């Protein structure tokens, strides 16, 4: 029921995530790539790939480098050795622990900024309703709860079509309804040929491959 409701709502809004348009083919390949942040080496040799429709689950303890790897994939961090080769130049959404919500701006203003086109009032209201925040568009984002803010970030992913979603433990403060919403969105995104790299809570999506960092990787090796 939820799936139908969500998909129907996306159709009605004419959002990029709905409809038949698919992302162009792309491939992210890393072979023998190092990972370091702040001068500290987190991994020596990583090899993985990510293509349309796939989901990469990144495992590891706190501090193992999951966030750093996601930032590297998003072009926000440089690889000390080797490189991440991106064919098809896919654009990325990076959703980290601090997900880029500006406290002083309202939900409405965030939507207008992300949409980068004129969003009529009715559309904004329907978007807010999509993430169960109807009627709260005028509120500043610092007045929302953490779970609500996580749902606002989902709107950004829906409004700006980019092929790769890099999610760093996005399900933290969400309740069941919120988690279901994200699951729907991820499934819809993959169905359109997008890809997801996720750290944390992989049971909620169906990963096509797993990558372990830090102690988890060493455990796996022997």
């Amino acid at each position, binding site marked *: 029921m939820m799936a139908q409701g969500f998909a129907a709502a996306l159709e009605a809004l004419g959002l990029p995530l709905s409809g038949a348009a698919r992302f162009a083919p792309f491939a992210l390949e890393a072979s023998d790539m190092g990972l370091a*942040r*702040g001068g500290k080496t987190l991994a020596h040799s990583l090899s993985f790939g990510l293509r349309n429709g796939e989901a990469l689950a990144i495992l590891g303890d706190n501090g193992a480098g999951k966030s750093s790897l996601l930032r590297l994939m*998003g072009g*926000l*961090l*440089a690889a000390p050795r080797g490189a991440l080769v991106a064919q098809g130049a896919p*654009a*990325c*959404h*990076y959703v*980290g*622990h*601090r*997900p*880029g*919500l*500006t*406290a*002083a*701006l309202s939900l409405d*203003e965030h939507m207008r*900024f992300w949409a*980068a086109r004129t969003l009529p009032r009715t559309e904004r209201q329907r978007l807010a309703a999509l993430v169960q925040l109807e009627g709260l568009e005028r509120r500043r984002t610092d007045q929302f709860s953490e779970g609500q803010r996580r749902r606002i970030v989902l709107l*950004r992913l829906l409004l*700006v079509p*980019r092929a790769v979603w890099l999610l760093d433990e996005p399900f933290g403060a969400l309740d069941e309804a919120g988690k279901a919403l994200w699951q729907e969105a991820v499934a819809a995104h993959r169905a359109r040929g997008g890809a997801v790299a996720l750290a944390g809570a992989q049971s909620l999506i169906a990963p096509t491959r797993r990558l372990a960092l830090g102690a988890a990787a060493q455990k796996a090796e022997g």
Partner: protein
Amino acid sequence: MMVWREWLLWHRQSGAGLTHMFVLLAAILLPFGLGPNLPLLRSLAPGLMWVIVLLAVFLSLEHMFQPDAEDGSLDELRAMGGSYEAVALAKACGHWLAVLAPLAVSVPLAALLLNMEMAALGWLLAEFLCASPALSFLGSIGAALTLRVKRGGLLLGLIMTPFYLPLLIFALGGFGQATSLLVLSGFSLAALLLAPIVAAAGLRAAQQ
């Protein structure tokens, strides 16, 4: 789009208002501090006004990148703008529109409080307008380079001093002559072209 966002943020997060308050407060306090010597005030007024403006702008620089870096918006701005250079350009333009352009109102008011004569006030405004892009764009360099530095205010002061001194010297040295306007405009043009590149390097380093 980014500049619209900057406008909203500067007006909501107290950055722009503080700058105006500083200018007016300084203009109110200085006559009391220097004594009721009207001719003295008049002769000192151009220099005083310039220093006040430079300090006021300096105070606002911290807020240029810091809030966005802290809440993760800087990453998203870069993703939307395509490069750190675009972000630096938008930020400097936003600062100019939101913080400096409105000073065109408080600067004359402050100058009157300092008993500046009308002709000098005209020159001051003209100089200020010619130099204002330089103030924003050079400021963006300082703000970007001190982004993740602890106690960055100290470093910011050190960085901005070699930028501000030439501006001040040329503004006051040629006060009342067209050459100062030309030189200040030259500074602004150079800053406009070069600052985004330097500021972008600072942002890139800070986000690693």
